[in-house]
């Protein structure tokens, strides 16, 4: 009798162990890693409105970097942003708004007026997708320092930079840095979807599964 009890509890505990191992290996819940705090900033958008990181608290934000005089090199970035903006209703974010922000890497020439003139052709509506700029040294510090995106003006007037799509959650924490070429809209939407899943599971028992997913590094990207 005693042995049966012991065997029973051993089996039960092995069950727990197998469960934990299964969770760690099979990763049934996937999350995006919490990488670092996204930078704080105060910039200006195409309508002359101040935009700060605090205004975006509670929103999922996809940041990109480009400039209006860029032409063909930026066209893929802009096309991707348009596609993501158009398909946002496919993603359930648990009520969290999604915002797209494109920060100019040519702030000297990209004044709010220039950005406003360029916005319609790009598809930026000034609310879901905003184009922002600011003082050169502030932009340099935010984009170069905070987001870690290097850019420099070239002698011919163009600006050299590598495309980056940075996803920040409602707490202001960077969750994805897509820096190799221009990602597919599907992948960006999937990353937004993962954040949405986490938000929807932020209450009750499901929260533990998501925290465990962070604990076991069940990272999707």
């Amino acid at each position, binding site marked *: 009798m005693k042995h049966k009890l*012991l065997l029973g509890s051993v089996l039960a505990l092995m069950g727990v*162990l197998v469960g934990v191992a299964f969770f760690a290996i099979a990763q049934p819940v996937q999350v995006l890693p919490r990488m670092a*705090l996204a930078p*704080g900033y105060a910039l200006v958008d195409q309508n002359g409105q101040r935009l*700060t*990181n605090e205004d975006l608290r509670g929103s999922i934000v996809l940041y990109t970097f480009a400039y209006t005089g860029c032409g063909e090199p930026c066209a893929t970035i802009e096309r991707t942003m348009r596609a993501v903006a158009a398909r946002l209703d496919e993603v359930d974010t648990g009520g969290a708004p999604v915002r797209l922000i494109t920060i100019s890497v040519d702030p000297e020439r990209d004044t709010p007026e220039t950005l406003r003139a360029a916005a319609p052709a790009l598809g930026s509506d000034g609310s879901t997708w905003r184009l922002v700029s600011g003082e050169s040294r502030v932009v340099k510090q935010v984009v170069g320092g905070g987001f870690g995106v290097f850019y420099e003006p070239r002698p011919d007037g163009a600006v050299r930079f590598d495309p980056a799509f940075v996803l920040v959650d409602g*707490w202001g924490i960077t969750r994805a840095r897509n820096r190799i070429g221009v990602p597919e809209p599907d992948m960006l939407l999937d990353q937004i979807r993962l954040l949405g899943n986490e938000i929807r599971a932020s209450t009750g028992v499901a929260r533990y599964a998501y925290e*465990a997913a*962070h604990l076991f590094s069940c990272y999707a990207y």
Partner: protein
Amino acid sequence: MIRTRFLLAGLALMLLGTGSALALGARLNRTPELHGTLLDPPLPAAEFALTSGGGRLVGPPQFRGKLVVLFFGFTHCPDVCPLTMQRLGAAMRELGDRAEQVQVILVSVDPERDPPDAIDAYAKRFHPSFVGVTGTEDELRAVASSYGIFFARNDAGSEAGYSVDHSASTLVLDRDGQLRLIWPFDTTAEALASDLRYLVRR
């Protein structure tokens, strides 16, 4: 003999299982009702050294082993900063002996009107252990930004000429200098003290 071995192995396995299950459960569940956002695992935090009273360079690295509480404000601040600083002071007094394990640093967001001695003296008005630091505008912007804090001069401001709009959250670095907790503005002194007590115990 075989049976004893089997029993011992079973027992060891059981202990291991219980241990890991408890560790996991504790990790997920040990958090009491925290009033700020706990970052678990903690996030990397930027290091810095800025100028305090008497020209001393002060920054989080020299307080390793203590919790470091960071708030960004300025001496001409009409409401948000004095309120937050006063609550941090009250929380420190509530902590009693444990307050020795907490260092509050006030970082200026108004380099023009906050010389090192002024910001440090201002911080000490709320608790003698507090330190205030400042630097050039570019230095302060870089430090603030790296902690997700924005600030911008607002000329449509107060009687003092201008005001500075800034993020009002307060951040806590753990003993290893990693970002652990973020309090929103308007967290009460009791709530601050309760969260700090929890973090000090860990």
